[in-house]
């Protein structure tokens, strides 16, 4: 079985401050990992993904995430947040199947509020 835990339901930061959103996963193998963002009343947008190689992956809008197999984590970071980053962020995991993946397991989401 696989699972994703986002321990922080809500995070509030000031504009310009740095950000870290935590994600822990449980999976017996090495997973595919993703961060998605959901803006109000919208679907999901992919921020970044990790398949293999360099554990630090760069995404859109200045986001990056670091994969740690020893800690079973995939934390999302941003050096300086903007008010427009206010949204709900979902960490997701997919099992590595033979040459493809399809089923995503999502965390509960972290609601980010950026204060001016």
């Amino acid at each position, binding site marked *: 079985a696989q699972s994703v835990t986002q321990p922080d339901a809500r995070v509030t930061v000031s504009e310009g401050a740095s950000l870290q959103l935590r994600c822990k996963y449980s999976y017996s193998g090495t997973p595919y990992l993703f961060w*998605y963002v959901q803006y109000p009343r919208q*679907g*999901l947008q992919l921020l970044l993904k990790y*398949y293999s190689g360099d554990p630090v992956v760069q995404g859109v809008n200045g986001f990056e995430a670091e994969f740690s197999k020893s800690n079973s984590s995939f934390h999302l970071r941003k050096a300086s947040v903007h008010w427009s980053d206010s949204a709900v962020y979902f960490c997701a995991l997919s099992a590595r199947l033979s040459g*493809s993946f*399809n089923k*995503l397991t*999502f965390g509960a989401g972290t609601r980010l509020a950026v204060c001016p």
Partner: protein
Amino acid sequence: GALVYQYPRRTICKSGTSMRMECQAVGFQATSVAWYRQSPQKTFELIALSTVNSAIKYEQNFTQEKFPISHPNLSFSSMTVLNAYLEDRGLYLCGASGDYEQYFGPGTRLTVL
């Protein structure tokens, strides 16, 4: 580029009626299509996974009798919510996969009166 469209974007139906939603992949071949539901204030739950030339696999708590899915070709899938009730409201996302990435549509938001 790869895009996924979903129709309709929003729909309202009366309790006990059914509604059909569609998912179209453009720019890639959707060998797999996953349907997810996000209930109010919750995360995304996988309803079922449809892979071309394989049987559709439903997750626990979701059944074909309630959520019949069609995946007739590599660019289209549809799902119907039969006998919709209040607990079926939410955002339904289609995730279409080619090789190594799943692309999401904007979702169909279902309101049940």
